């Protein structure tokens, strides 16, 4: 990348890294039993110690929850960047491909079948998400090419279809309605280390696109121009779509559907570091993590001891922000 982007990229990464660090510390410190920054420092180096209440709160409750939130936020933001730039459509978010609705359907089936073991619900959500991606993919394939426009339409259609099935299931399984609704609105409540382990799987998929920033930049000029400049467009597109799909499915499977992070974060970050992916991807990753950690912090502290679903918080924060961005008339 050129000098201009480089001078924007590294300060951006540093700034947002600092922001994420602050958010993480706040999220670990605040809650029904507040911990001081010094205490957090101690606990971090002490490691999990049985018998200590602070230690248990820190290592068994807050740390996994905060890490899950950070990873899910990062995954959704990266997925949002990929999909917006692949579709060359600023209103695209990780959910338009239908992956999240498919994942929601999978999770709902798990809940209705009383597979109370959380990891089974997660597996079903991943299967539902990736299965939807496969269906949408096949619908959009024509002579070895993926028509992104058809993919978008197919994704939206499948999303409606999956939501309809979820609704039917909710009516059928009256007693599970609350669980399903909570899941659909998204929450990090009660997430533990098994969830972190699933969320950690997103890391390679977040790193992978970082090796294709140049191709992604060039593809901003449209698929034909990218071909002319030497990009293997179909291969790149396939890789990016699968990456975004896996990221979304994994994120949705551990947290439920959390809106606006994948839509708004890439837009804000473009204002900060520009549309070049060398800066946009890593900064979006960090910013998405920060936003989700803060949103989760708000969701469990604002009306404590009750929790607001985190998807509601991100929507409350994201919707006005997004309208503001649209009013500013940004094209990127």
């Amino acid at each position, binding site marked *: 990348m*050129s000098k201009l982007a480089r001078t924007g990229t590294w300060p951006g990464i540093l700034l947002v890294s600092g922001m994420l660090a602050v958010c993480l510390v706040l999220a670990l410190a605040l809650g029904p039993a507040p911990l001081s920054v010094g205490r957090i420092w101690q606990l971090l180096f002490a490691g999990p110690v049985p018998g200590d209440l602070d230690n248990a709160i820190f290592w068994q409750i807050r740390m996994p929850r905060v890490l899950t939130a950070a990873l899910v936020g990062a995954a959704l933001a990266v997925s949002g960047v990929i999909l917006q730039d692949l579709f060359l459509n600023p209103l695209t978010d990780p959910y338009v491909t239908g992956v999240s609705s498919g994942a929601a359907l999978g999770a709902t089936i798990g809940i209705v079948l009383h597979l109370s073991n959380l990891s089974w619900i997660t597996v079903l959500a991943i299967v539902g998400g990736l299965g939807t991606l496969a269906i949408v993919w096949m619908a959009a394939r024509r002579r070895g090419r993926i028509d992104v426009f058809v993919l978008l339409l197919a994704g939206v259609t499948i999303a409606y279809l999956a939501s309809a099935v979820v609704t039917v299931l909710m009516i059928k399984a009256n007693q599970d309605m609350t669980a399903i609704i909570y899941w659909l609105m998204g929450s990090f409540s009660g997430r533990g280390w098994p969830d972190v382990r699933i969320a950690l799987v997103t890391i390679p998929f977040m790193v992978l696109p970082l090796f294709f920033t140049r191709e992604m930049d060039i593809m901003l*000029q449209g698929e034909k121009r990218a071909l*002319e*400049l030497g990009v293997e467009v179909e291969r790149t597109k396939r890789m990016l779509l699968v990456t975004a799909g896996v990221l979304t499915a994994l994120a949705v499977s551990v947290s439920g559907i959390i809106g606006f992070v994948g839509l708004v974060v890439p837009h804000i970050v473009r204002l900060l570091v520009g*549309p*070049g992916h060398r800066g946009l991807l890593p900064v979006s990753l960090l910013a998405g993590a920060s936003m989700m950690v803060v949103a989760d912090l708000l969701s469990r502290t604002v009306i404590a001891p009750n929790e607001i679903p985190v998807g509601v918080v991100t929507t409350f924060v994201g919707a006005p922000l997004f309208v503001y961005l649209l009013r500013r008339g940004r*094209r990127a």
Partner: protein
Amino acid sequence: MATPPDHPAVPEPSPERETRHAPLVALKNVDFAYDERPVLRRISFTLEAGDFVGIVGPNGSGKSTLVDLIDGIHQPVAGEVLVKGLATRRYKRKAMAREVALVPQHFDLDFDLAVREVVEMGAYCRGKDPAACGDPELMLARLGVAELASRRFSELSGGEKQLAVLAQALMQQAPLLLLDEPASALDVSHQLRLFDLLKELNAGGLTVLCILHDLNLALHYFDKLLVLSDGEVAAFGPPDEVLAPEVVEAVYGVRAYLHRHAGRTYLTFSPRLRGERRGRVHLVCGGGTGAGMMRELVDAGYEVTAGVLNALDTDEETGSELGLHMAVEAPFSPVGEEAHAENLQLMRAADLVVVTAVPVSHGNARNLEAARDALAAGIPVWADEGVRASDFVGAVAGLAEGGAQFFAGEEALLAAVRGRSLPGGRAPVVSPAAARVAAPAAADDPTPTASGDPPPGEAAT
């Protein structure tokens, strides 16, 4: 070709290429269709390194598709497209981009990237080594727009964008540059700058294949032209050969006229009525009194002849540009026997003889005699009222006696000719005896009556 490829434009040979001499680009009997709709048929031609070739042809003749085929974006349905002897389908995109660069017709970018970043993208096919990639700022400087580097691409004007995209394509360092109507969004000064630049790049060894619409630019700048018509090659060769008026007329369906002026050749055009000819009109004119009418009548679909005119006379020059059949006499000479005889023949073949407000002197009085002969032979003669005033030898009187009709000026004459359908090949039958002589038309009522016939009137003089 004008520029021998003494500058090795090819940076590195591709490993899988056949090494024996192969032209840079060869198309062999290429057919192409979008879905079931055929676009190109039986296209065969080759480009050698150093060629500077323009592609012209009407909209929808398959020009852009042809360029995309050479760049391997499309694959032919039949036949072969070879770049350096290797079929385009065997190239990976990156290898293709190292051989062929394309400047697209439409290019826009909705994202706020700096021009430098956009230009730099062209070096993608050259890998990551900055030494091999070249400097985007130097490239912009080479095109004379170094100052654009730090501006935002989306803020550039149309012409600046075009140059930035050209810089992007040149970053590929490919030996062949394809351009798809690069000049269509540019004003005339930017157009000329662009083509001068391409010429310069060509002199440096770059092979250029450029689609353009302006046939005069094509005529001036390119060493060879490829004319596409309805998906087929209509002509391929030196511009002045392939842009002969007949070819242009056949390909574009317009009339084309070739002019030579100050050592340059250019084409002008006029819409052409296809199909029936509207009739044949002979003009008696001279000194520029008939030039306007010649064009008007030709454009309106009449076959026009003229005479006798002196060579180098304005009307004679206009007539030869328009490709008219004329009886011509040597410059500044009175009408001689031979020219007069030819003129009579032309008049007899005409459906109508028109006399403009030409100054009549002893030198050309014979033309009016000829017109009178035509009247006697049953061919109507319509004259501009103005000729009475410019008649210095009293020749017009005879014309009036013979039954000629007079009109108040060129406009009125043209209106009358247009309003009256001349039956192709034969004159309207007007017996000289029965024909009434048209009165000098009133200045404010110059047009013929509703029937389309010239206004009747009493005999003049």
